[in-house]
């Protein structure tokens, strides 16, 4: 693992996989396309709706539980196949998924994110899709989320982990 990847693991971020192969910037466009499909699904299944999130947390509809539950089952089957068959990516690399290490941040941070999720009706993904769907005021919510991330980074060493 490279130094960069080490640092990313240590600091507990989700995306740690890094390709050794240098690729031109436009090779990233495929992720833009996947992101677009993802955003369309978010809007069409009303996952970006504040009302749907209220329904979920009030246990008055199955919709969001169905979405998340199905996504986890499909993801789980896919990941198990990829790991057991030692599948390589289209770029020829062996697919590696790093384990997540427990720290208390998952409890404190998780609770805090939950409070924010219910208020805004959005986790980070839907924030982007809400802006795209024309709710321009959500740009303020997004900037505030960037600020929240920055403040975490600033005071990280003083927080329990």
């Amino acid at each position, binding site marked *: 693992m490279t130094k960069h990847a080490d640092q990313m693991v240590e600091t507990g971020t989700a995306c740690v996989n890094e390709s050794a192969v240098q690729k031109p910037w436009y090779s990233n466009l495929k992720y833009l396309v996947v992101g677009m499909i993802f955003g369309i699904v978010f809007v069409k299944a009303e996952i970006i709706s504040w009302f749907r999130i209220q329904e979920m947390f009030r246990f008055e509809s199955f919709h969001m539980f169905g979405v998340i539950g199905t996504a986890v089952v499909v993801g789980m089957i896919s990941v198990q196949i990829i790991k057991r068959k030692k599948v390589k990516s289209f770029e020829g690399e062996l697919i590696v998924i790093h384990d997540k290490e427990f720290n208390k941040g*998952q409890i404190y941070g998780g609770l805090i994110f939950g409070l924010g999720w219910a208020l805004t009706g959005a986790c*980070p993904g839907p924030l982007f899709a809400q802006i795209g769907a024309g709710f321009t005021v959500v740009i303020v919510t997004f900037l505030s989320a960037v600020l929240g991330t920055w403040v975490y980074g600033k005071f990280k060493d003083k927080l329990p982990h």
Partner: protein
Amino acid sequence: MFEWISQPWPWYVAGVFIGLTVPTLLLLGNKTFGISSSLRHICAACIPAKIPFFQYDWKKESWNLFFVVGTLLGGVVATQFLSNPNDIVIADATRAHLQENGIIDFSGMLPSDLFSWESLLSLRGLVFMVLGGFLVGFGTRWAGGCTSGHAIMGLSNLQWPSLIATCCFMIGGILMTWFGIPFLLSL
């Protein structure tokens, strides 16, 4: 066909698509699904301020930024070209509860009573949009992931820390929904 696409999509269609994002990203370039990291990369790119947490080569993670820009564009496409002309249909109980607490407009994805430029500078607007956003950014980074990184990617990979994080997301959301929001709507 188009008729069907413009209707709201059922949960199992959305769930399959979102679940398939996990292997798609792994196969395309060995990338693990996660969205809240994009907020960190934006900090690293725009406001690093010599904070070690933001001193890394964010350009190597730029695929994540392409992904979220795509998500935003997907929101544009779905709204401009595949839009459902009808009001959103939510559970009667939720609607009744929100009406009792002063939500009037049920026509869009977000209640304009709370999320609009006009209400931004009201106390309610500040709490729902500004404080809410801050808690999302601060909480996800402290937890090391959000609904995608922990609840979907982490659980797919059978990671128990992700299960703890996901339970905490739900507990936080339930507490805010049952105790915080009814009070905040009365402000």
